[in-house]
């Protein structure tokens, strides 16, 4: 705050003392806590409404990713489904199985990558580890498993679609 004493006309327009503006009374603090409490209740309400009445749209239909010979064993391929901006990663596990996951860590949305021959997907930001076979969290701060897509083989073509409801993750 300016402490210029030459021209104090502005003080007439802003008659608030420095002490008053920088100190919060306990009474005001208690009221502010109540306001925060109301905000948190409203926030929880919005999350509840959105989860129950405006759920996120699932991937519709089947989407071609690549041919099987384009992705070697232990290799990965990133892709984006048409009409969406969510990045996905297709993993060709060493045992020959194919898995497709959202490439965003469930902690803070960093890009995750597959560590070849380890069977694990790693998030480099905070060392989160996911099981490459199921997407479950193995270690680190991520609170949820990686969202997964179903992988379908049609001849040599690899397609992905939404995972059916109540699908066993293994």
């Amino acid at each position, binding site marked *: 705050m300016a402490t210029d004493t030459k021209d104090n006309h502005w003080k007439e327009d802003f008659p608030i003392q420095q002490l008053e503006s920088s100190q919060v009374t306990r009474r005001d603090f208690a009221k502010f*806590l109540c306001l925060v*409490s109301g905000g*948190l*209740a409203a926030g*929880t309400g919005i999350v*509840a409404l959105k989860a129950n009445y405006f759920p996120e749209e699932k991937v519709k239909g089947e989407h071609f990713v690549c041919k099987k010979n384009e992705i070697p064993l232990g290799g990965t391929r990133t892709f984006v489904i048409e009409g969406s901006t969510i990045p996905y990663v297709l993993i060709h596990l060493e045992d020959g199985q194919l898995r497709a996951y959202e490439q965003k860590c469930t902690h803070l949305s960093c890009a995750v990558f597959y560590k070849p021959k380890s069977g694990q997907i790693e998030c480099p930001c905070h060392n989160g580890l996911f099981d490459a076979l199921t997407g479950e969290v193995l270690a680190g701060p991520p609170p*949820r498993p990686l969202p997964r897509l179903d992988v379908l083989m049609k001849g040599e073509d690899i397609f992905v679609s939404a995972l059916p409801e109540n699908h066993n993750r293994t």
Partner: protein
Amino acid sequence: MSTFREGQNQAHPNKTSTLILALIMVLMANVSIQIWLLYTTLNNALANNKDIAFPAFIASLVLFLIGFFWLYYLPGGIKSRRIKKKVTLNDIYH
């Protein structure tokens, strides 16, 4: 004339301080539980466990209402004494 309340306040000057501290502690505990409820609701909603969302919202709302009505017990500041009725000349001389 001093009232009972004024006499009490003079005899126990720390009482208001203790009261307000206790009130703030309870409010902080409420807010902490609400933060946890919001975090849990969000995580479960993102993991498609929707059943927890509305009970958590109701719990959070109840905590807010408790905090809101809790403010009723907030000790008031130095209030100018209210005059309940107009003082007439008769009141003064009788």
